[in-house]
């Protein structure tokens, strides 16, 4: 089976470069081109092996990194050639400058995006209600302005409000099965089930009769329980059923 995902955990080559610099604790103002190019190429290569789609921008950046690396690896210029190849040696024309500037500029907005995200989360904790429909209070139609003075934006904005209103008016019960399977709850269920079964259950039995989302939640709950050392997993031999067992008799507080 062909399996591909896009590389969008990184928002483009600049994001990936920032990540590599950060991971290696490297200086944004003095980029070690050779090292970073190697790592960048390695990343691209891994992506190819994993058959992930690589956006063309990543390849363009790879090419410019390689160009930059080769320029910087050129042997020191001979005196007489210097005036021709001056741009390489000139400090003001360090090929890294442009990349550094782009990275710094990009990083500013990446951070600003993070701040927006925080504001978004905060705002999402304030609830309101749809505006009341006051049109029945209008005595007759002529009261609505004779001239139409609206923009496309007004129209879209009205539509957006409608979409939002419809989303909000959906009874909460209808969405329960979709989003609201908290991992914590499933963790408690697993523990309870283990307790009723003397602390052991096969891995596959945990996934009985469950919808897609529930399977995912169950899987995550198992990982979470293992991480918190509340359960363990053993397997007697290759291809045998994995057995999940309870480590301590603990229950999770809600």
């Amino acid at each position, binding site marked *: 089976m062909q399996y591909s*995902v896009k590389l969008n955990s990184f928002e483009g080559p600049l994001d990936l470069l920032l990540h590599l610099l950060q991971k290696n604790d490297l200086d944004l103002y003095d980029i070690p081109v050779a090292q970073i190019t190697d790592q960048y190429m390695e990343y691209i290569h891994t992506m190819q092996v994993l058959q992930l789609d690589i956006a063309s921008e990543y390849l363009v950046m790879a090419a410019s990194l390689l160009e930059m690396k080769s320029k910087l690896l050129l042997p020191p210029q001979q005196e007489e050639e210097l005036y021709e190849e001056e741009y390489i040696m000139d400090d003001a024309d360090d090929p890294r400058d442009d990349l550094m500037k782009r990275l710094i500029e990009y990083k500013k907005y990446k951070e600003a995006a993070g701040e927006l995200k925080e504001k978004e989360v905060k705002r999402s904790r304030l609830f309101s209600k749809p505006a009341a429909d*006051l049109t029945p209070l209008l005595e007759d139609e002529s009261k609505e302005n004779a001239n*139409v003075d609206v923009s496309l934006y007004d*129209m879209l904005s009205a539509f957006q409000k409608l979409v939002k209103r419809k989303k909000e008016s959906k009874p909460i019960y209808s969405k329960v099965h979709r989003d609201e399977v908290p991992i914590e709850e499933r963790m408690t269920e697993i523990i309870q089930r283990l307790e009723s079964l003397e602390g052991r259950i096969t891995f596959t039995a945990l996934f009985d009769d469950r919808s897609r989302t529930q399977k995912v939640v169950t899987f995550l709950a198992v990982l979470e329980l293992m991480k918190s050392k509340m359960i363990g997993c053993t397997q007697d031999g290759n291809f045998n059923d994995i057995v999940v067992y309870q480590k301590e008799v603990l229950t999770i507080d809600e």
Partner: protein
Amino acid sequence: MTNNEMKAIIEGLLFVSGEEGIELSQLESVLQKDKETIKDQVNILTEEFKQKERGIQIVELGGNYILTTKEEHADYFKKLVQSPTTATLSQAALETLAIIAYKQPISRVEIEDIRGVKSERPVRTLQGKVLIKEVGRVEGTGRAILYGTTKEFLEHFGLRSIEELPPLPEDVEEDDIEGEADLFFEKFQEQI
């Protein structure tokens, strides 16, 4: 939770429930308190709202608590809807126009399905302003009128053709991510 806090949360719950209101049993399940305690606080709140300096009130309709405005202020709400600073085309008309623009040809019943409310009036308003027109009839019984936008609509919004409309507020991106997760999930399921 103190009683005062409970009262505050009840006020908030009544507010977000809007015109649909909220049942005592819903309050119970959200607040995790017994009926009597909740009812006491609702009664206290109801009394407080009765004061002259408050602009909203609790009414009980068929076992539902609903927050509404007070009747003695009705004239001001009328003024609000008639005030020139309020959107020049009503929200209702704009919504209807957007639905027709993006989904044309469309019948009034379908518009009402999307909006969730009767839409005869906004349709008439838009027709009166020549932004929409009858473009055909549904086949079969009833032969409901189908509406579409007019040349005046395009002119008004400075569009060369209907294709120039900006994209609809649908979540293109979210859908795509879901697709990717599906692929991943297939992989994941093979393992279990």
